[in-house]
């Protein structure tokens, strides 16, 4: 028997959560199907005017991604809380923040990454240019992990509450507005031929900030919820 280090633990948690996500595929598909449906319904409802669709593309795709990533947040800690795994995680000989970071990463891989990969296909419905599609993907790639990490704080705070889902959205959505602004800003700048680098840099900065602070804050919130 050998003692495992911090990175081993991170990899273990990510692998565990991904295996669980694969065995409960319905949960992962719900997020993706919601995203696809919402984005595809808009052109049908609004009508096939190319100019209008092009203008609203960035907003619709980003808002749909934001709402879709809220869907799976409630399950981030609740299953582990109900079956007692969370207690064991709090007794891990490594920092709880590290375990939380692993759970956030796995959550993003199973709910955020599919959205990033699906977005360009859906963007075609809005007649987006290749350049805009590329920027959209990069902005989602930088932005969706931030959504997962911010969402984790809300999920930890509302753990074990009845009707926590509504409260979770109320807590988390306002915090996600900067991500939405810079994400859509980047795509709109790209489609009107302006410089989009500043928006992406700000998204990147948000990502770095979130990576530093949210695991620790979430770990504290979990400790409070476990009392």
């Amino acid at each position: 028997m050998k003692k495992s280090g911090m990175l081993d633990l991170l990899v273990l948690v990510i692998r565990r959560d991904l295996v669980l996500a694969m065995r409960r595929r319905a949960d992962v598909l719900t997020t993706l199907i919601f995203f696809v449906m919402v984005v595809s319904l808009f052109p049908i409802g609004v009508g096939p005017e190319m100019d209008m669709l092009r203008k609203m593309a960035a907003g619709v795709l980003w808002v749909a991604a934001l709402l879709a990533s809220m869907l799976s947040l409630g399950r981030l800690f609740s299953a582990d809380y109900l079956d007692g795994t969370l207690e064991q995680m709090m007794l891990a000989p490594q920092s709880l923040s590290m375990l939380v970071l692993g759970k956030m990463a796995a959550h993003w891989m199973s709910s955020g990454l599919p959205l990033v990969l699906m977005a360009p296909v859906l963007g075609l419905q809005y007649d987006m240019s290749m350049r805009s599609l590329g920027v959209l993907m990069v902005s989602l790639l930088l932005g969706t992990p931030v959504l997962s990490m911010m969402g984790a704080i809300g999920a930890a705070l509302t753990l074990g509450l009845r009707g926590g889902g509504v409260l979770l959205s109320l807590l988390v959505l306002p915090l996600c507005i900067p991500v939405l602004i810079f994400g859509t800003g980047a795509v709109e700048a790209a489609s009107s031929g302006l410089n989009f680098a500043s928006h992406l840099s700000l998204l990147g900065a948000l990502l770095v900030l979130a990576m530093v602070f949210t695991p620790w804050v979430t770990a504290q919130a979990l400790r409070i919820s476990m009392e």
Partner: protein
Amino acid sequence: MLEVSNLACSRGDHRLFSGLNFNLHPGQIMQVQGANGSGKTSLLRTLCGFLMPDVGDIVWNGQKISELAEEYHDEVLYLGHLNAIKDELSGLENLCISAGIAGIELGEKEALTALRRMGLRGREMLPTKVLSQGQRRRVALARLLVSDAKLWILDEPLTALDVAAVALIQELIVAHLARQGMVVFTTHQPLHVAGMEMRILALS
């Protein structure tokens, strides 16, 4: 050594216990007794550090557990009411993962040996959702076999277990005490530990 001094704990406005003092030395075992709702689980969870005591200190080898944090976690094994196993995973995967979370890298062979010793031969690869309540408890209890923690905190370890499994748990506890380990536990079923003095802490 575990030292608890002047410990008080409450849930909501209700004071569960106060002025609790005890020491636990290596090789000692202590049973926490009390009626339903007397605070047995809360005491065990406080010893783990999940609950903050209202007043009082819990000291492990001369240092407060709140200051030791991860260092203390390395020495503790907690088995609660909940099994902490995932229905979708097999017994083998569950054991490897819970050992991994407790900081022990477990080989497949060691994990299989532990599960077989717990009487789960032939069921190691089945998803735990198809196992019975007692078998799932056995998967959770297999952690006792692979852990090197000094202090075992066991909350009702015998629920859902049959006579053979109870005997096995008693055997494991005796072996752990012989290795200078410590055990704090609650149970409503009789648990006999041969040749050891059983200390009793009664909560009222």
